């Protein structure tokens, strides 16, 4: 699976709902009827601010993610992209 391009703008899919939970959050896609679990509140912060950030990298930086942790978050976002939870913004 190719990694998500951090230097592009990304949005949460319009059919996806986010429900915060003590451990992170639940994501539900009404189109695909699929659930995903975010097990990390930092990742939740990234997902929530994606749409306002010019790039995914900027959203990660704003959430305070260190450069060394970036690959882990990139993988997590790639997984979300693969299941259409997040989609690349049309440029």
């Amino acid at each position: 699976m190719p990694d998500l391009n951090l230097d592009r703008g990304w949005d949460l899919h319009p059919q996806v709902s986010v429900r915060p939970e003590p451990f992170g959050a639940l994501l539900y896609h009404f189109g695909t009827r699929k659930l995903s679990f975010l097990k990390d509140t930092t990742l939740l912060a990234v997902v929530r601010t994606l749409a306002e950030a010019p790039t995914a990298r900027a959203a990660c930086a704003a959430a305070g993610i260190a450069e060394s942790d970036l690959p882990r978050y990139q993988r997590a976002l790639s997984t979300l992209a693969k299941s259409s939870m997040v989609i690349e913004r049309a440029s």
Partner: protein
Amino acid sequence: MTLLDAPPTSPFVLAPKDTPRKTERLVDLFEYGLDAPICLTWELTYACNLSCVHCLSSSGRRDPRELTTAEAKAVIDEFERMQVFYVNIGGGEPTVRPDFWELVDYASEHHVGVKFSTNGVKISPEIAQRLVRSDYVDVQISLDGATAEVNDHVRGPGSYATAMKAMQNMYDAGFKGFKISVVCTSQNISQLDDFKAIADTFDAQLRLTRLRPSGRGADVWDELHPTQTQQRELYDWLVAHGDGVLTGDSFFHLSAFGDALPGLNLCGAGRVVCLIDPIGDVYACPFAIHEEFLAGNVRSEGGFQEVWKHSELFLKLREPQSGGACTSCTFFDTCKGGCMAAKFFTGLPLDGPDPECVQGYGEELLKNRKDTAVELPKSSIVDHSHRTTRVGREGMGPIQLTLSRRAGIAPVNASDCEVGPLVGFTPEQPPAGALNESPRAGINLLASSKSRCVCGRKGACSCS
């Protein structure tokens, strides 16, 4: 309990299948409960046109106390506020409620997805056309036999034809990926490939669930629950068919055969799962309609949210549970002692093995229970079964061969039919007399799926 039909994703965007480091497992986080259920079953009515012998909710007749349309809409409003993404609507047969489609539309308008379970009685071509246009609605059609004779023995005469017609209508309307839901029994385990073929024919997805000894299911559990050998067959089949088949996480007790099956592998009762019954009572799970597992009612002050968040029962279920006798078992970490409801309704201790424990510990306990004539839990919940006896349940079932031998004739030259565990078994009492009194007392000699009779028929055969 039924849990998630969600497919897997990856580490720390966690999906049910993932089992990373033990301390990070999603299951461990879920044990303390969620702000709202992930999987909520809502039974809209006790009314049903059928009288399935294994009905979990002993449905049949409508209850005059059932929620009104306005009350049901208020419950949907609450789901929206709590962000309950979707509900599994069942019954009874939910579609016989006159306001059923109105409630489905209302839920969709309020961003609450609906998957409803039906025997197909109302799925006409017109309704199928309407369903295919909705993003928020999914349909699950029940089928408990891949052939009419196996299905109708459990679900009633004509029910196979009704379900098949409904599926055809869904297919013709272009509704892709609707669910075909099968309760696995000793009579249909040999038909798993056939069920899959039916699902493929209709562009549907197969969903297999476990027979629970709940409701009327308690009366037929001894007869219908899969044998140890069949449980193994089912496990192997599930491993081979992996993600293509849904299970609602209902077979986590089978994980003790080896690798964990896809799913959370956790009893989610009161933690991530619950049931709202037609009169608004909230139970820990759909298989536990008994006052022991009653947490409250949606009509009470604070509504459903109050029950979910603060009921004494649910808070208790979210505390760490004792594994009891199971703790020392190597497989406890994956099977977690199995299904609470299955234990409860078979009279086994809740902190011990599941009655269908694949290591055989449950069977031992069940045997002791029968020896000591322990009374099974009776419920004071109103039984909504039809008062009349269903036609068609007379006589032996389709594959309930009663093998009898005239006294004194030794079972020599066993034919290829006799591949069951009871080969050579001579009943102590001649079944001839027992047949009329107890039509289901026959020896079930259901053969494994691969075996054929010498006459060429698949499975058990009465040709000889």
